[in-house]
């Protein structure tokens, strides 16, 4: 099991670019995962980030004023996970 997975689960992070209004809160909170592009729109640099970032990711999702950041736990599809 890599650091990315907890009990066969994987964190999936997405930004809905259509909703993003460039407040930059996600990039400020979790710079390891989010980056603002030159137009101010947030992009996800690491869509399956390590588990230890989960609290920061949930905070980033919570404070996004455009409600554009989604953070989900999904079952890992990696066959090696068993």
């Amino acid at each position, binding site marked *: 099991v890599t650091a990315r997975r907890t009990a066969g689960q994987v964190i999936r992070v997405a930004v809905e670019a259509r909703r993003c*209004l*460039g*407040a*930059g*809160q996600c*990039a*400020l*909170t979790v*710079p390891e995962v989010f980056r*603002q*592009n*030159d*137009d*101010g*729109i947030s992009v996800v640099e690491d869509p399956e980030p390590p588990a230890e970032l989960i609290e920061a990711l949930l*905070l980033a999702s*919570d*404070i996004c*004023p*455009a*409600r554009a950041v989604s953070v989900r736990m999904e079952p890992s599809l990696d066959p090696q996970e068993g």
Partner: protein
Amino acid sequence: MASNPDSQELVSWPPPRSCPFQPPPPYKELRDRDPLSRVRLNDGTVAWLITRHAYTRQLLTDSRLSSDRTHPDYPELAPGQKTVNTQGFLSWLDGEEHASHRRLAIGDFTLHRLAQMRPRIQEITDNAIGNMLEQEPPVDLVRALSLPVPSLVICELLGVPYEERRFFQERTVVITDRYRSGQDRLTSAAELRSYLGGLVAIKEREPADDMISHLIAKYRKVGTYDPGHTAGLALQILLAGHETTANMISLGTVAMLQNPALLAEMLSSPEATRLAVEELLRYCSVSDLPTTRVALADITIGGHTIKAGEGVCLPTSAANWDPEVFEHPERLDFSRDARQHVAFGYGAHQCLGQNLTRLELSIVYPALFTSVPTLRLAVPFEELPFKEEGNITYGLHEVQVAW
């Protein structure tokens, strides 16, 4: 709007603060009773007052609430609010129209772009402190530091030439001066709009690496360029980012002078400074009153129905002192990560310049207290002139300091 039969018993909004560093007392009382309450505005109309963090955020992301201050039912803070020339003001627009303008402006407020501005903001701050120290104390911190720093930073951002910054600064000071009449303040705002119109015309011909030039290029690219609108957008960035930031510098400085242990904590590391800035933003909630809306349709929330045409007041200090989210909100506590605060608003209109403000404050506080370690108030705390009624943003008119 129809008057409410119970209106005589309603709390008047906005109510005064009784303690300078606490929100108006009725917010807590109303939150405990019902976080969606009816209040009476200065003009006698009745509106909703929201005092719960969760409801405030929910409503500020609800597209059935409008920011259109020209709407006949919009809750008016001050008489004449609807007569100001607001062409280009983002905070007056709704929905896609608002988003289409905002998206063109955000490129100049990205974290990457702001990081490039950091050395200049540091220099502006150090110069202001240097100039202050050349004077004989006592000195008014508001005039020496709180106002000039954000004003010069906005000059830098917009691309105001050096030789014109005095003109620009003088007028930005008048806008915030309590001893000037409302007419003088409006005249100064009009002069700034006209000045920025001229600046836009210059940037059309000679673009540079500044926000006004970038806006012109972006508007032209999408085919919606309007010089008057661009000047108005620049003016709003000035008006929104100037006095608010100045108030945070003044209030934060006074709060630190009252709490030496917290000051030491703030200065202990960059991360400690970040936490301190966030908590001070929550605690002071200087932009308390502008978060108002009008309902365009019926909205059911918290066991009530906000009816179409009703005004909604969502003061940021009420949400930011909600104990459901911030335990012991009355404690200035740098160990909490206060990032869930709504000091910059929430939803589509959340402050465009919020990360610039964070950067300015994280530079100014440490610079001031490390350059002037003996800084102290030159008047008793009780005599400080806090901005009470009649001001849209909360803060201090003047802070006499010595060292």
